[in-house]
């Protein structure tokens, strides 16, 4: 009996010790309040008003100060933010939003529906390039019948609206601060007032932006950190050194060559995402100028596609951080991405056969020679120029090397972005190029502009190929009017099947961003501009 009692007591003591040991551990797993987070950003944003620009620098630095009507979850789907609920009416031509009650601007003024209406009508539709280009011509009006209701009316059903309302695509700014002023020069652009989790603290040009906790944030308990510093460090490798040296806690972009070092170190954590404030879900895409006689010929484009081994692009340029593009629409938009398409596979013999068939004959070493090619003088060498940003030089080098093996000469022409855009889209002075086409959260935003015939120049990063296909135009128009996702999926699938047959472009690799942070920190959300809303660090 005594022995049994002892056993029970010992068991209870052990249980108590176990609880005593586990209780603090559970406490350590919970969020920690206080402290200052340090985040590295690449460039000085110049100002902190994300509603007047699509600049990634401004959005990365300022979105924590603001909110959109909606947010986005890990899959990119809309979630309530300033709007607590919404209804889609008249087949997608009318959207009615119910706003959250009790939201305050950082200066204490109440947030109302008139702020939303003002932001769209006076700022976003004038100055935010993506919002202006995508919905500007289709929106017939925005109504604010009371303080908590906003109604968007479109001329026809407009499908992607719910994906265009986060702080990246449509940050809401304060009417009482901006009304009657020029939004581009308003002093509040460098002393901003938003509704976001952090309030503006100070902005030292070229050095850092300091934010402080918004104690009146409408999401209870958030944010955890007392402050956040956006430290401007232009060189990505120096950002990594600063992370290793404990000077910063979070990096927006971990460069490929350094990923092995950081991922293999238990002091750090990483996460991949297709989201970036400057443009999400991007595919490195080779464009063919269909107005040039050489590339007008489908067999030449097919030969290019089959001469390229995209796996080497993924391995040698992205160090495996991304994926070979399996369709014209990014796999990060799963419902629109057409899986299982018959994309061209690397086959050098088949590429050579296609070029022979197209009249490009191998006569000795070097590029092939035209013999009976339509629109090209006999004896012309098969040589194309290839325009690229200086940062994409490695793509050019691989393309020149791989196309050279089948007798296609490639002349590389690196041009910085401000020169590249008018050369390609306005002057159309190129044979081929590589562009990081970002699909955005919805194909209507970033994919339509690549294929629709109405999008051929001069606006930059539109239909570089000058691709014209009435069937594709009609499918895009139908998809933009449909709000039912299954129907849109079917339409986008058809578009992608046609695009893979016509090959106005060749889709090389999907790029992703890798975020990195100190392992003593938690709660970072890599997929949204409000990435540090629930973040905290243990010191």
């Amino acid at each position: 009996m005594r022995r049994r009692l002892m056993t029970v007591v010992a068991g209870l003591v052990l249980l108590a010790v176990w609880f005593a040991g586990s209780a603090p551990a559970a406490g350590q797993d919970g969020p920690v309040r206080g402290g200052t987070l340090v985040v590295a950003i690449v460039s000085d944003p110049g100002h902190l008003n994300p509603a007047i620009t699509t600049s990634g620098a401004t959005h990365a630095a300022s979105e924590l100060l603001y909110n959109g009507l909606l947010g986005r979850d890990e899959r990119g789907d809309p979630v309530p933010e300033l709007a607590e609920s919404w209804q889609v009416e008249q087949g997608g031509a009318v959207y009615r939003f119910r706003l959250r009650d009790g939201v305050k601007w950082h200066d204490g003024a109440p947030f109302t529906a008139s702020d939303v209406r003002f932001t769209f009508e006076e700022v976003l539709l004038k100055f935010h390039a993506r919002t202006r280009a995508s919905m500007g011509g289709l929106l017939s009006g925005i109504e604010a019948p009371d303080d908590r209701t906003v109604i968007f009316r479109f001329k026809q059903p407009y499908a992607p609206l719910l994906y265009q309302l986060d702080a990246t695509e449509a940050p809401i700014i304060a009417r009482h601060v901006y009304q009657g002023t020029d939004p581009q020069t308003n002093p509040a652009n460098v002393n901003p007032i938003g509704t976001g989790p952090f309030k503006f603290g100070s902005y030292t040009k070229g050095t850092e932006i300091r934010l402080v906790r918004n104690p009146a944030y409408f999401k209870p308990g958030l944010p955890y950190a007392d402050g956040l510093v956006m430290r401007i460090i232009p060189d990505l490798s120096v950002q990594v050194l600063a992370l290793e040296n404990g000077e910063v806690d979070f990096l927006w972009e971990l460069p490929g060559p350094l990923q092995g070092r950081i991922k293999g170190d238990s002091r750090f954590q990483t996460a991949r995402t297709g989201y970036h404030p400057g443009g999400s879900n991007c595919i490195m895409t080779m464009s063919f100028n269909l107005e040039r006689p050489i590339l007008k010929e489908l067999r030449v484009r097919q030969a290019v596609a089959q001469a390229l081994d995209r796996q080497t692009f993924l391995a040698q340029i992205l160090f495996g951080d991304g994926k070979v593009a399996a369709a014209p629409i990014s796999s990060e938009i799963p419902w629109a991405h057409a899986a299982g398409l018959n994309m061209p596979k690397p086959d050098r013999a088949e590429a050579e056969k296609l070029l022979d068939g197209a009249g490009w004959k191998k006569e000795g070493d070097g590029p092939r020679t035209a013999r009976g090619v339509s629109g090209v003088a006999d004896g012309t060498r098969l040589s194309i120029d290839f325009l690229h940003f200086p940062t994409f030089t490695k793509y050019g080098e691989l393309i020149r090397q791989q196309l050279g093996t089948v007798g296609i000469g490639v002349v590389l022409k690196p041009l910085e972005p401000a020169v590249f855009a008018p050369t390609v889209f306005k002057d159309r002075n190129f044979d081929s190029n590589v562009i990081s086409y970002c699909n955005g959260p919805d194909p209507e935003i970033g994919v339509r502009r690549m294929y629709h015939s109405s999008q051929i120049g001069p606006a930059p990063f539109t239909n570089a190929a000058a691709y014209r296909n009435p069937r594709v135009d009609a499918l895009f128009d139908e998809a933009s009017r449909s709000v039912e996702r299954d129907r849109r999926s079917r339409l986008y699938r058809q578009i992608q099947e046609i695009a893979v047959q016509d090959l106005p472009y060749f889709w090389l690799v999907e790029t992703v961003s890798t975020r990195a942070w100190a392992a003593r920190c938690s709660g970072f959300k890599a997929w949204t501009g409000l990435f540090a809303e629930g973040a905290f660090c243990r010191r």
Partner: protein
Amino acid sequence: MPSRYLLRRLAHVLPTVAGLLVLNFCIIHLAPGDPAIALGGEHGDEAYYTFLRARFGLDRPLPEQLLTYITNVLRGDLGTSFVHGRSVVAVITERLPATLLLVSSALALSSVAGIGLGALAARHGRRAADVSINAVALLGYAVPSFWLGQMVLLALAVGTGLFPVQGMTDARNPQTGFGYLLDVFHHLALPVLVLAANELALTTRLVRTGLIEALGTDYVRTARAKGLPEGLVIRHALRNVMLPVITVIGSRAGMFLSGAVLVEVVFAWPGLGRLLLSSLLARDYPILLGMFLLISLGVILANLITDLAYAWLDPRIRYQ
């Protein structure tokens, strides 16, 4: 004091600056690239870019833009930055102190240490000290600053934890008063070392060569024969070596600014160099023109100071 000389030199400065204003304007505006696209990003429609061009006056004929620019400069208005939306003078003035601190510290280090090391090497001609200093100087002269910057970061910052990797101050624990000064100097050490390395090497080699030659001259031999202490001999000889050294230091003041661009990027130093680079990529014409003007004036001023230093060093030189 050569006040008439000074006035005449200043009178030459005015047409030089006027010429530079026109030249800088033409070079920037004739270079390919569209600020509207750099500003508007990649998703705008043509109407948006047209709107931006009109807003910044870029749709006006080039001679009209030039005339407006010159008129504004004469009124002391260098324009408004396309990117920052604020006056060029304000944007540049914010960054100027950081660059001045970096460049002047590097100039002081390279000059003082360069002269000292050069003299030391010359005094110990072809012995261990001379060979070591010469070898290090050669290395310092040959190594590009961006590479040296990365190596210094790895070895002295991440490797030892003694120095910070980036910035001018500690982001997490901002200091005030004397603590702030200490923090800035702590952050300044590595960028100054890297920026000064090249010029330090050049000055060392220049002083060493000149001094070895001067120490072989008759007046030095006479001075030594009379029993003058070696330190005093070196001082006398050094004064004669300084003319070419001052010329080189003065003429390379502009090089420091261009070197500062790389060093500021590597060490995230918040100065004009980084502003110049980002403005170039964004085609922020007003900032670029303001920066070019400032750099031109800096070079002109450095040359003027060099000329005046000649007379101080060599009493035989007289200004006409």
